[in-house]
């Protein structure tokens, strides 16, 4: 009887090892990896997946074998064997998993240390979370954007915070995230390793527009990044183009619908066809005055059924006057 148990477990163990190896070597469940720390994490993940497969196949295999082999035969109303335990076996299956988790913990710690080793002179990008848009500030370049542009191969240090509730800055293709917490700046180093356009998502529930709090990270060649900096330094001369750009830069796209600016947020009222009705919404205010007031004092006039406390009330301190003019003109023309 004991001999059969050893045989079955041995065969299952070999099968489990083969499955574990095949899964670790061939199965990829992660998105395209676009950062150096992500590459380290991917290796750790695949090893873990292999180890998990070994345990899974072994346990489910034993369970399935038992269900098939030890089912009561018809007419047999007898008892099983009166085995109460086996100290050696119990020590064994306590010690082996303990050893396994020590190995996993050490490997995880080493991956963590390597992935989070401080880069030398990283480029700083401040990440600010707001309901429901991301803002990226480049203090060295003196500009602000709603899209995240990064030069490939350059270490970046994100300094992450929030101006309202807790958000979480997640770039799935970097295989890492960090919370944006009000009153605190969290640092988070990444070196992008692949050129491409990848999503930025909010991973911490932050209110009704949580799902729409998305942006994109554009990883590009250093030359393309420099060119983008140049373009960003000066607003386009065409006022419509400039207004459209500002509409995205100040995060309006996160909450409002406006096809012209590619915005489909659902938290705030739609701004489609706004120019035609802005002048008639509030008696005594022409379109331009109404739009200006609605941006600077969002609570002054709430469109029925929409939330009162959700639109940021600090645009007066964030938008320079000439940019506000461009934005109002742009909206009045929609």
């Amino acid at each position, binding site marked *: 009887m004991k001999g059969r148990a050893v045989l079955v477990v041995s065969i299952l163990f070999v099968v489990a090892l083969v499955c574990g190896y095949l899964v670790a070597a061939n199965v990829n469940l992660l998105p395209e990896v676009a950062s150096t720390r992500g590459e380290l994490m991917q290796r750790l993940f695949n090893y873990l997946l292999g180890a*998990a497969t070994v345990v899974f196949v072994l346990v489910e295999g034993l369970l399935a074998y038992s269900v098939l082999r030890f089912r009561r035969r018809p007419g047999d109303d007898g*008892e099983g*064997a009166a085995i109460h335990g086996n100290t050696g076996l119990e020590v064994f299956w306590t010690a082996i998993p303990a050893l396994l988790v020590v190995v996993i913990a050490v490997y995880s710690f080493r991956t963590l240390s390597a992935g989070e080793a401080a880069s030398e002179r990283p480029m700083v990008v401040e990440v600010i979370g707001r309901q429901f848009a991301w803002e990226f500030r480049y203090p060295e370049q003196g500009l602000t954007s709603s899209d995240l542009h990064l030069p490939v191969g350059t270490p970046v240090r994100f300094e*992450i915070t929030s101006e309202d509730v807790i958000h*979480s800055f997640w770039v799935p293709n970097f295989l890492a995230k960090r919370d944006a917490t009000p009153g605190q700046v969290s640092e988070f180093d990444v070196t992008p390793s692949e050129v491409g356009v990848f999503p930025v998502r909010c991973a911490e529930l932050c209110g009704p527009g*949580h799902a729409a709090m998305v942006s994109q990270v554009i990883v590009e060649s250093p030359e393309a990044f420099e060119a983008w900096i140049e373009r960003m330094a000066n607003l386009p001369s065409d006022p419509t183009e400039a207004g459209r750009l500002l509409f995205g830069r100040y995060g309006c796209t996160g909450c409002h619908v406006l096809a012209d600016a590619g915005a489909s947020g659902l938290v705030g009222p739609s701004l489609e066809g706004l120019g035609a009705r802005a002048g008639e919404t509030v008696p005594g205010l022409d379109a331009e005055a109404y739009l200006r007031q609605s941006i600077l004092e969002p609570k002054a006039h709430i469109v029925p059924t929409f939330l009162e406390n959700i639109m940021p009330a600090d645009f007066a301190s964030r938008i320079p006057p000439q940019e506000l003019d461009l934005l109002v003109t742009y909206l009045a023309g929609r």
Partner: protein
Amino acid sequence: MTASTLETHSTPSIRRYFGWSTDHKVIGIQYLVTTFGFFLLGGALAILIRTELFNPGTDLFNGTEYNRLMTNHGSVMLFLWIIPVLAGLGNYLVPLMIGARDMAFPRMNALSFWLLFVAGIVMIGSFFVGAAESGWTAYVPLSIEAPSGQTLWAVSVILLGTSSMLGAINFLTTIVTMRTEGMAFMRLPLFVWSMIATSLLALLATPVLTVGLVLIALDRVVGTVFFSVAQGGDPILWQNLFWFYSHPAVYIMILPAMGIVSEVLPVFSRKPIFGYTMIAFSSIAISLLGITVWAHHMFTSGMDPRLRVPFMISSMIIAVPTGVKIFSWLATVWEGKLRFTTPMLFALGFISMFLIGGITGIFLASIPVDLHVHDSYFTVAHLHFVLFGGSVFAVYAGLYYWYPKITGRMYDERLGKGHFWLTFVGTNLTYLPMFLAGLLGMPRRVADYAPEFTLVNQLASVGALLLAVSTVPFLYNVVVSWATGPKAADNPWGAKTLEWQTTSPPPEHNFVELPVVTGMPYDFGEPLGVPAVAPAGAGD
């Protein structure tokens, strides 16, 4: 127990289930029926969620409505279903299993139930004044700004915490002081051991959550600034208070479930449980380790990087006592003569799916992996494999196993097996695709998602529908069998624990004559062990 309390025999009437009763068996049934009602409510909310998520875009509900559904789905399922249904089973079973006539504090026991009942009314009431919408985790500052339903939510959870603490005191006192003659600690059924471990944890951890909820309520109602960043408050403080309870709460939700599995497997394998002592101590080990792991929920919060490592290590170590249980169960089944009754199927299903929840827990404990999958659908899949594949499967196993004892009737095996297979397939179909969604980048708690996640979400929604359908044969079986099922014998499964050594259903004070224990609760197998109970009258 004095003779005078034994004289209160009267014809049991169904009316006693609708009012104040101090009989632990009546209270147990009140718990089971009420919490199952909450389970159906939580399930209905889940179906609304899965309907919204069948396609990308916000088709049915806007963001606010979605957040309310999601928040209350989680709160109802955890606080009003899993935690109290297990307390309900404990209520019914612990006095019977240790050979006592009731719980130590019968009136406090009734109070525990009625607190749950009121808390449920308050939480459902909050739906009508703008329900809570900041997740069951209620992270500040979002939960401070939420509409007034959030205050009712906090009040409800404070009441539930109080109910839980009273229950824990009651269980511990009962188990320590009211065991019958011969019921040594090392002869306690493993379900009772799991209730000791659970109650210790509830006593240590629940007050911390309650304090945190009081602070939230004060910030919201009185205008204090415990969590206000602008006035020097700290939002991370809430996360510490919350998880100090809410991670141990997972063990409060799984330890009694493991206890149920340890009862069911030996009976239907006709073998002693393998490694009784190690299983009993592993429950205590999980309980003690369980209070040292909470900050693994905060690896992405920007906490001191050095502090993360000890929490990773303690979280991973929990896999060791958990593994001990799984291997001991496998060894219990090994070379048994397995009878695939419905409770046995659910217990085996528990092992196969809890395993997935356990293994993926190692991924989440590993900090570099967690930084990617935290707050993604990977986490959603993991927690549902633990709480649905785990706890709910064990609850079903327990409900079928003790059904003849509780009702005095047999349930229908064919309906039971149909229920099992629907639930088993539905669970895997619902939650397996969620692992992939999370790994590929889908955040949790979203009303809308990128089109690339459509297929996995549709599979999950179909699975959820299957799970909804699966409750139909169960409810039909429970109700119809109770009314017209064949009469159950006192010990239809040939089990050795004390609840089976009295009538089905047990008399008002459980035993006509208190049993005297002479052996272990799982002395099955050839050659037959000593009988677990002395013949009636031997104790005199």
